[in-house]
């Protein structure tokens, strides 16, 4: 076997699979020390939603409030044993509290700074849980003795030599100015008039969600223009991501039928 460079993320992913597979055939019983209330879907991606001017510029972000999403029910757990990590991680005081509460069950906390533009400084960009953390319904549960570290990535101004990852609104301020939630067709027209190539995606509620809580909340399909009766959900880059750069030409405009669950989640 040749020497292979170590890829920590791949190894860590393997450990997470190990833990998930070990839990697959049987249900664990009791001994839940800390229940971390958080949206499972929101934590399934490294970034969380960033809402700017009413529009979600999050990267691959589940749409808040879609069926099965937040608000976050915490059932069957004494309140003092439940932590809302996303909420606590957003401030120095909250992080101190989080560190203390996690330490009480033998779990560390590491806060890392990610270089971002001004609008995302101080915002929690991602939360990584110890490998033996597991989802239980829509809570992420840490059992006493799992050990490890919760890693929170928080947006910070770039240091010398670092390049900030800008949001679309930061890189292209004319974009949010052109967006009108209630005028999807006009939004597409204005963005195109600004010289952008606009790809429109229609997002609809997934009816399967009614019977399968783990089903994908929504379905997406490409359309030429926003259909009548739709509202704007968000604008992303060509890859569906939150980041932008000056000179970027391609935008994705996500729209949804007015009154749908996914549209209602985007006030």
């Amino acid at each position: 076997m040749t020497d292979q460079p170590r890829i920590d993320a791949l190894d860590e992913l393997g450990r997470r699979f190990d833990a998930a597979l070990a839990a697959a055939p049987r249900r664990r019983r009791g001994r839940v020390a800390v229940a971390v209330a958080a949206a499972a879907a929101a934590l399934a991606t490294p970034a969380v939603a960033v809402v700017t001017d009413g529009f979600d510029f999050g990267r691959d972000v589940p749409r808040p409030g879609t069926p099965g999403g937040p608000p976050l029910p915490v059932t069957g757990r004494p309140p003092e044993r439940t932590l809302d990590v996303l909420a606590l991680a957003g401030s120095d005081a909250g992080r101190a509290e989080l560190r203390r509460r996690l330490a009480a069950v033998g779990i560390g906390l590491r806060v890392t700074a990610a270089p971002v533009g001004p609008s995302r400084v101080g915002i929690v960009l991602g939360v990584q849980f110890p490998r033996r953390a597991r989802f239980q319904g829509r809570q992420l549960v840490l059992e006493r003795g799992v050990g490890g570290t919760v890693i929170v990535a928080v947006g910070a101004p770039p240091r010398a030599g670092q390049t900030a990852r800008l949001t679309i609104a930061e890189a292209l301020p004319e974009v949010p100015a052109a967006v009108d939630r209630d005028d999807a067709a006009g939004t597409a027209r204005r963005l195109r008039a600004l010289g952008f190539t606009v790809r429109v995606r229609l997002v609809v509620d997934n009816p399967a969600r009614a019977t399968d809580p783990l089903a994908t909340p929504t379905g997406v399909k490409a359309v030429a223009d926003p259909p009548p009766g739709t509202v704007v959900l968000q604008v992303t880059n060509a890859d569906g991501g939150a980041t932008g750069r000056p000179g970027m030409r391609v935008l994705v405009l996500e729209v949804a039928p007015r009154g749908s669950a996914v549209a209602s989640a985007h006030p």
Partner: protein
Amino acid sequence: VGVAALRTSVRDPPAFAAVYRAHARTVLVHLTRRTFDPEAALELTAETFAQAFASRRRFRGDSDDDVARWLLGIANHVHARSVRRGRAESRALRRLGVQVPPAEPEDLARIVELAGLAGLRADVAAGLAALPDAHREAVRLRVVEELPYPEVAARLAVTEQAARARVSRGLRGLRAALEPPAATQEPSP
């Protein structure tokens, strides 16, 4: 180890971990060369193994090579869906309760190196240079400039059908440079 572990995992799920250890790098390299994005490739690799685990009962191969081909087929499917949807799919991962860990910059650099992206870019550049001018320009307008076909056709002063044909032939000409070589079937870590 792959085929035996895969069969065992049907009744003993933790055995699937050996499949991951044996093939994770191969899948990651494959997807990195398809996406040119190590971060996205890591997410797609995770979803690939989650889908493979979910469908392990349907594996019909006889050898470890069959396992690798089966996994790469799933990886191609996951990648194609992500391209169509404009985002990485994560349904199987969520069902399994696995989150993709963030990759540090050093990790991303190692993945790029492992996948040989620098060499691949050179291969693509050479492949592009070797294309007929008309095909190269059609590929540039459609893939690099991301123009819709009607606009590509207008720029090239041809019909939309002809523009589609030029892009298709140009991409076909590049396929040899883009396809990962057989050497990416790497030893397990």
